[in-house]
């Protein structure tokens, strides 16, 4: 080693040191801290640009918690976000990034709408058929990226994302043109579907679909905690080579996990269609796929953490809608999401590494590297 390098080693400096063990509680706290710091930073930026962030936040909170309707509307937004987040989390367990949930959501809603408009069946049966159609629609939409990833090693991030643009245009085509409701005055949507999800607890706006993500999250929590399948998926996520040596068919698992992920996103579209909008329209998603992705990232693919995170983001988004009426645009909310994502990324690092400031500890005798 040259003297320059040796000199650099002696100089005081800041470096990252891997923690021997990642404490899950610390990791969770770090994430929460990261989000809080990110939100504070965003609030500060808003305040600097002359928008009273604090009173806006207060306004948002009171309009959400202050009345029952606010909470129910938050739950309506939370339903697709949570389902999308579960879809992302399932694939994230295997370290696969499904950022195409938005597209799968659209195609699930599209397939469910086709069944809901054109199939004549009693309501309960029709709902089941719509859910099936939604699941198949979402799963088919991710099938090509899944096979390409599993067998030809094509990056799934870009393929799933490119298909989002196709799905949105596809749904626009059907809702503005092919399936458009030509009788009603509704200009840019299909007719109402034949069956709607019933309301929850005698509520007037919130549908039973809200229960689905809660049940599904609990189901996957059990599957990944106690199930063999879940264990194998986690193992592939941790070390695909080791998993392959252990006799797990990695490729088949990649395809199944991605198909399941797509199917959940498709069901999410069906639930939102049959529960909230009733009609297929070009703007049916309102960025739920994106929010779901953020939630899954925030929760680190933990199914219990995801429920908390999803409700939190739904609250944020609902307040975003409130803020919009007070003159703050939805664009700012998107940018704030970005800042939150940075907060999560930094927190993830901070949970696994610690900052060491100062001189490097003297090397133990014999620990020196042999010269290259």
């Amino acid at each position, binding site marked *: 080693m040259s003297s320059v390098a040796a000199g650099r080693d002696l100089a005081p400096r800041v470096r990252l040191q891997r923690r021997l063990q990642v404490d899950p509680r610390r990791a969770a706290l770090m994430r929460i801290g990261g989000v809080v710091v990110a939100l504070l930073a965003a609030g500060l930026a808003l305040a600097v640009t002359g928008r009273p962030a604090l009173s806006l936040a207060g306004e948002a909170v009171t309009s959400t918690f202050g009345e029952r309707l606010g909470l129910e509307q938050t739950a309506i937004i939370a339903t697709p976000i949570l389902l999308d987040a579960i879809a992302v989390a399932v694939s994230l367990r295997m370290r696969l990034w499904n950022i195409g949930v938005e597209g799968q959501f659209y195609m699930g809603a599209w397939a469910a709408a086709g069944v809901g408009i054109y199939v004549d069946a009693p309501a309960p049966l029709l709902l089941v058929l719509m859910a099936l159609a939604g699941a198949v629609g979402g799963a088919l939409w991710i099938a090509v990226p899944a096979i390409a990833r599993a067998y030809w090693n094509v990056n799934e991030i870009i393929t799933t994302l490119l298909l989002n643009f196709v799905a949105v245009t596809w749904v626009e*085509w059907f809702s503005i043109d092919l399936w458009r409701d030509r009788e009603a005055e509704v200009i840019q949507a299909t007719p109402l579907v034949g069956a709607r999800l019933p309301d929850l607890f005698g509520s007037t706006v919130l549908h039973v679909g809200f229960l689905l993500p809660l049940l599904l999250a609990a189901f996957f929590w059990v599957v990944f905690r106690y199930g063999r399948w879940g264990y194998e998926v986690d193992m592939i996520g941790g070390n695909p080579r080791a998993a392959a040596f252990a006799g797990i068919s990695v490729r088949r698992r990649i395809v199944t996990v991605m198909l399941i992920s797509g199917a959940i996103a498709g069901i999410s579209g069906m639930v939102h269609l049959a529960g909230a909008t009733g009609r297929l329209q070009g703007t049916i998603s309102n960025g739920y796929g994106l929010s779901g992705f953020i939630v899954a990232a925030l929760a680190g693919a933990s199914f219990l953490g995801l429920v908390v995170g999803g409700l939190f983001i739904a609250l944020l988004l609902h307040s975003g809608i409130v803020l919009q009426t007070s003159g703050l645009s939805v*664009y700012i909310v998107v940018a704030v999401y970005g800042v939150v994502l940075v907060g999560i990324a930094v927190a993830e690092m901070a949970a696994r590494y610690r900052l060491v400031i100062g001189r490097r500890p003297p090397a133990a005798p014999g620990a020196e590297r042999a010269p290259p």
Partner: protein
Amino acid sequence: MNIFLAALRTAIDAGTVVVLAGMGELLTERVGVLNLGQEGLIGIGAVTAVIVADQVSSPWIALIAGMLAAGVLGFVFATSVVVVRTNQVLSGLAVVLIGVGLSNQLGNDYQGSPVTHTFEAFEIPILADIPQIGPALFDHNIIVYLSYVALPVLVAIVLFRTRHGMNLRAVGENPAAADAAGIDVTGMRLLYATIGAALSGAGGAFLMLSFTPVWSVNVARGRGWVALAVVIFAAWRPSLLVFGALLFGAMISLGFIAQQQNWGIPSFVLAMLPFLVTLALIILPAALARFGFKVRSSVAPASLATPYFREER
């Protein structure tokens, strides 16, 4: 000019954004950094160009401003992933959201008002006089020539014909070895992730200063993601990247022509086509190679998207 040549002319213009953003991403990925934020960087470059062009009457200053703004965002991203070593996928998506959100917000006031000072096309003497292909190939503005000829040649020479380029590639392939050889891995990654982002910003600025000189929401329209895909298609080579971008441009151009000529293809299908073709561009070669066809394999830089820890090598 016949219809085919008119289509070629539009394809070249439409592909320029993808060449610029793709070349930026290519340089970034060559040093081992994956910046998924292209969509956001194009947005920032575009909105800055619109705002600056409104203030000063020079497209050049607007272009440089767009590059600087995207470069700043790129530098912040690079610091996050190279120095703090955050997850590159998460940080890259954050760049998308911050870039898209901010640019939509800032551009809101400029909605619908065209940029007045744009880059003017100029005919290359003699070449533009060639019958038929002359006007299609040699009647563009300066940015188009720079993007399709000067930039790829420059990048290719630097990457494959200079020692600096070899160091650059070494950082992307094997940072530990590069570090041992005395190459500044952190500096190299910061530098090229920033330069790459600035190039993507130039792509966004080009949109506003030449191709579609009026601000609209979500200005990048997926071109950032297409650029990412084209880098893979190009197997991280500047020459193939130009070809891939041109193919994408051709699909956009096909859409224009089909509508102009009333071919009866629904506009929705035409809008989906460029993305489907881009998808095919990255999946087909990989699939063909697997089925035993001789396709040049597309292998990513070995350390792509992996942070480098000197202590853990």
